[in-house]
């Protein structure tokens, strides 16, 4: 067994944890978030919504089935382990990463992949303790500091949150995760415009699978100039209120009758465009087991979620109504316009990773065009 270099995790509250370095020997900082999903680590790490964040897996054994080879062909119907072509999380925190992987689909171990992706991580620390800290302090920043690795030199001094931690400034984030030029995929009678604020590949795969042609547009594209018959507002990282004039451009779409489906950040942007407000949640939803209820029914669905902001229910304009609510904390999980074909969900109907119970939302969206 090779002995790994030691690594320290410093938190913005002053706490320090010592563990082992995995992945690349880089010093990085970012907001700490977690997911309680027990599978799907490669999907999560490549999910652009985690851009700039340090992602903690609460399940202690990560990397058991390795990392599959990257297929860049996103017209493949099934999810295959990647939600974009690279790791978007800034760093990884795990209890134990598997030293070996034997799965038939595995190409390399988590550690090797992180090295290849130039992303550091820390293993061997009390992840459950960290979750308690993140949960109770709401926003926690951290810095991964490999020992024996040349650092910026300020590492040892006490770090104040304001200067040393990467606090997502939203516009820059979307620029980082969005495509630079628009492109088209799939074949179908109807073309759906996808506003790429960091879209997960499985959203694109699902749209194509259900028979749509898609045009993926950069986050700052002029939406009024596109020739599409429906819009999909994608997931993405950051605070929905720090997205420049995107909400205004979306508000422009609301004057028309083109169907819109928003997912996650796209849901929050749609709500903002409609005139509602969003706010930071006291307990974010970061798991594969979130129950949502279809409003007005006794029907529920288990969903995959990753968000720290929510749409404020009281702020919904009168033309809009809640579509889904969270069965645990009653927060808004989806909204729809009372007369026009505009709707959005806070959760991830495309799953990958997580349960696929709400896949019908994307299917229905395409089929109804």
């Amino acid at each position: 067994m090779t002995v790994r270099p030691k690594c320290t995790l410093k938190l913005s509250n002053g706490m320090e944890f010592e563990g082992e370095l995995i992945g690349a020997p880089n010093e990085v900082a970012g907001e700490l978030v977690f997911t309680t999903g027990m599978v799907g680590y490669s999907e999560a790490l490549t999910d652009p919504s985690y851009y700039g964040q340090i992602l903690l897996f609460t399940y202690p054994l990560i990397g058991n089935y390795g990392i599959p080879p990257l297929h860049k062909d996103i017209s493949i119907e099934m999810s295959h382990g990647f939600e974009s072509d690279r790791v978007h999380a800034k760093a990884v925190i795990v209890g134990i990463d598997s030293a070996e992987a034997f799965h038939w689909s595995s190409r390399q171990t988590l550690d090797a992949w992180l090295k290849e992706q130039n992303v550091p991580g820390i293993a061997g620390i009390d992840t459950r303790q960290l979750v308690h800290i993140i949960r109770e302090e709401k926003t926690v920043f951290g810095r991964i500091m490999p020992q024996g690795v040349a650092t910026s030199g300020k590492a040892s001094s006490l770090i104040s949150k304001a200067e040393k931690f990467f606090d997502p400034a939203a516009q820059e984030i979307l620029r980082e995760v969005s495509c630079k030029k628009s492109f088209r995929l799939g074949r179908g009678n109807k073309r759906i415009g996808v506003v790429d604020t960091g879209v997960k590949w499985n959203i694109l795969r699902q749209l194509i699978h259900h028979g749509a042609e898609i045009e993926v547009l950069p986050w700052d594209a002029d939406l009024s100039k596109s020739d599409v018959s429906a819009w999909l507002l994608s997931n993405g990282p950051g605070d929905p209120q720090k997205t420049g004039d995107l909400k205004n451009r979306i508000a422009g779409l609301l004057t028309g009758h083109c169907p819109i489906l928003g997912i996650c950040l796209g849901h929050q942007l749609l709500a903002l465009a409609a005139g509602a407000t969003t706010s930071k949640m006291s307990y974010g939803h970061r798991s594969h087991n979130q129950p949502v209820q279809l409003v007005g029914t006794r029907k529920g669905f288990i969903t995959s979620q990753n968000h720290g902001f929510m749409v404020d229910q009281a702020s919904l304009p009168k033309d809009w109504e809640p579509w889904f609510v969270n069965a645990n904390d009653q927060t808004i999980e989806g909204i729809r316009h009372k007369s026009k074909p505009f709707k959005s969900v806070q959760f991830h109907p495309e799953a990958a990773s997580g349960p696929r119970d709400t896949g019908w939302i994307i299917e229905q969206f395409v089929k109804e065009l």
Partner: protein
Amino acid sequence: MPLHPQLQQLGCKPKIILLGSGGLTIGQAGEFDYSGTQAVKSLLECGNEVIVINPNIATVQTNPQAGVKVYLYPVEPEWIEKVFALEKPDAIVAGFGGQTALNCLIALEDNGALKRHNVLNLGTPVSTLKMTEDRSLFAKKMKSIGMPIPDSYACETSSQSVTAASAIGYPVIVRAAFALGGLGSGFAANEGELLALVDVALAVSPQVLVEKSLRGWKEVEYEVMRDSQGNTIAICNMENFDPLGIHTGDSIVVCPSQSLSDNEYQMLRNAAIKIIDSCGVIGECNVQYALSPNSLDFVVIEVNARLSRSSALASKASGYPIAYIAAKVVQGFDLLEIQNPVTGVTCAFFEPALDYVTIKVPRWDLGKFKGVSRELGSTMKSVGEIMSIGRSFPEAIQKAVRMITELDAGLATFVRVQLADSDLEKALSEPTDVRFYAVISALRSGWNLERIHGLTHIDKWFLSKLQEVILCENAIKVVFASSDLESVTANQWLSWKRLGFSDAQMAHYFLEAKQKKPDQASINCESGKIRTLRKKYKIVPVVKKIDTTAAEYPAKSNYLYMTYHGSVSDPGLGMGAQSKKTALVLGSGSYRIGTSVEFDWCAVSCSRKLQEESWRSVILNCNPETVSTDYNSSDSLYFDEMSLERVLDVCEFEKIEGVVACMGGQLPNRLALQLCNAGIQLLGHDAETIDTAEDRSKFSALLDKLGIDQPHWIAATSRGQIDSFVEKVGFPVLVRPSYVLSGAAMNVAYDRPSLDLYLSMADLASPDYPVVVTEFLLGAREIELDGVAQHGEILTAIVSEHIENAGVHSGDATIVVPAQKLYVETVRRIRRAGRAIAKGLRLNGPFNIQFLARLNHIQVIECNARAARSFPFVSKVVGLNLADAATSVMIGKTPRLARINDDDLPYVGVKAALFSFTRLSGVDPVLGVEMASTGEVGCIAEDFESAYLLAMESAKVFLPKKGLLVSAGPEHEKLKFLPWAKKLTGMGLPIYATEGTAKFLLDHGVNVIKVAWPGEPANDKNGQDPIELLRTKKVDFVLNIPKNLQRDELTRGSQIRQGATRFGCSIITNMEKMIAYAQAITRHPDFISEHVPRPLPEYK
């Protein structure tokens, strides 16, 4: 929650029948007490009246309590219908009583009883149940919803088999139909191999089955729940460590799955939801899959539309109270409106997120059954299980090994016989109860993963984790070889603890490295040093919660485990309770032959009584099939190892006033002295009492001092001592090691050769203790005294009587309360001796004393200074909870007990043992000093005969209707049977008898039909073939008395006994039991139609 509208229509307090699962058998064990008990609670909470029908008197669910009526009756349609007529219930719930309850429900639907009595079935519709039970209906259903199932074709020619194989795709498996022992079965990778196999198979069998080969596929299960609104959740999945082919009850099972990707996990989850949805299941369901190790291919193996053993495991592994919630769902509530009682803030409609790994390991006890095959396959053989929890696989698997071996040194103490490579290969490729240890041996011998995987098909990920443990084991040995304990660094201790090594295990390696004998005393000494050393470095386990949300939400969960993968314990734990004293109750550990639900009943009663008395109750147990490990059986539950090290950890973390070690059976009892030596306060009996009761010579000296007689015995350390003892007392003698429950390695030697054999076995069983040889009395009665004493004074004690003469293990015996046939003087002497022993031992808590009696002369066999197996039976029959009373004593209170006058009970209780012989092919179903039963039932009725018939019926001994086949054994037994043979034939029951018995009975004027012995040609002279009589059901009851209690040779009688088991005949192998039975059926010839059921009265 209030009454659900669906039930409101039935009345303001609907009466709901809950079917239990009956006595415990292999495949249907304690897990159904867990599910039934949760269901009762769940139904009661909503304002229903609950009627429990279950003859398993030792369960928590059959406790009489407000709002619950208990009928200790067989879970058979005719008896359920009698209760229908009497109670006029509104609805029935059958999903919590295993296969027994489901079969019963299906029968009640089919015979129209549900309709006749207007009883509503709550939960999954009967039509769905039938579909999942019927192979072809199930296959049809799965195909209709596009679910792959394993293809199987029956072929009668080789060309048919070739066509079938090409339709299925190679490799295929060939099975010869109707051939015993797997002759002509095997794998074929191509047409050539197929034809070679089929030619052989068709030579011995008219038909072969050609099936898709799933060799080496992963076995994965999902636990799913669906409500009446169609909302469905997958509570968790489980992955078998062993690949497909071994019954999941006999597999090591890991939860959650370890080697499945998100894609695979979600694919199988979706399939499970689709299946349960399209079948219309309401409540809990279990779906089993085989998953290819090389692709996304999978097939559905089985669907169980009920609570199952897996559900109990899933419930404990995930923290989700499956049975409790399922019982809400069958009432009509939807999952969205039910709160998750574990968090108290989230709803029941969610899927638990685990942040730990759990491993279930079965316990087999196959050594207790002579002649049984140790190979594992599609028939379950294990009798119990444990579950370990850790935050790494090595930590969890090492805990699991210690839990199942009950040796603190775990892997270190395996008998490491160096196997030849070829033997090891065989041990790896043929799954048996010891294959796991073969894997460990192979790793120790340096075999690589590829080679072990090739032989076992166990996923390499699992193997690599075991390899990590073995590599560390080697590293520890290297360190110890060259240095002392003091020079081990903090980092080394920590990394070793994180890989799951116990202090005792490391002490063992240390002693070996220093070439010292690793006996118990040295291990205790060195492990104590290790504990002190590492604690100096602050290397102690932390306590984490199982909260179902991986800490995403705050949870008020009290479900805990310990791990070394952590730096702090969860917030809010370990403070004790300022206003309350805290007691730690030790549970039973794994169930096994001799320890079962009855000890869980004791532990649960104790915990609840502590709470009633305003104590804080903490339970430690590692058995997922129990009620004691439910989230609401205690104030805090540690699901962890039952070891000295872990008990000390818990005591140091919690502010424990004292430990209750006398309620969980032999395992905690064995820990008691060690705990006391480690400075832990025991509640109840003090250490000296326990030591004197357990130590044969000390106890014997006490009896001598008290002037109480006992059978002659000797604790011999040499063969010479034994020989001279036997010369003095004569054969037969009882041979057993000390400190043993349930007669493991206990045997009666009738002559010198058998003595030689048993001595070698006793030696193996317990190297640290001398062999005890006891004079064995023939023809004596066996009597037990169960009770509670305080400071040496008996507060209450109940006399019970065995139907069988001494020689049948008390766990297998049929027991009656109040005693029916004892002389008043015998009872008087027993009570007097009991009082003297209580005083002499200074008993202060629960106890059980076993006596022998011949005429009025009594001898003491043993005294258990702890709760006994018979406690729940005796408590419920006399209406006084002995476990409660004992708990009061333990916390220093004097319970005010209703005076029990057992002469004056308005009814009689009979307890009968239940055997699992049908599960264990090759086993001779005969009783002896070794316990062989897996469960028990207890019934009450106005008179002994009725109670006895009910108990026998509950124990699957059904009234003879067609004919009785008798082999009455020795002459004196034949003579005893003679008058009853006359009465039975007089009732019109045909009697068939083997040669000697037939001659004897004919000579004495009883009209019997002579049958041949198995193996003899059936003809006019010899008579008919007995096995044929059994097979064709001309005989439905067998009385077969073995010549003596030796069971080594496969006698002709044994073939009849095995035949009876195989063809589902009732069988009795003991003459006292048979005479009681004959007496009962002659007194009540129309028992089933005439008997009016009565419920169990409440405790006084």
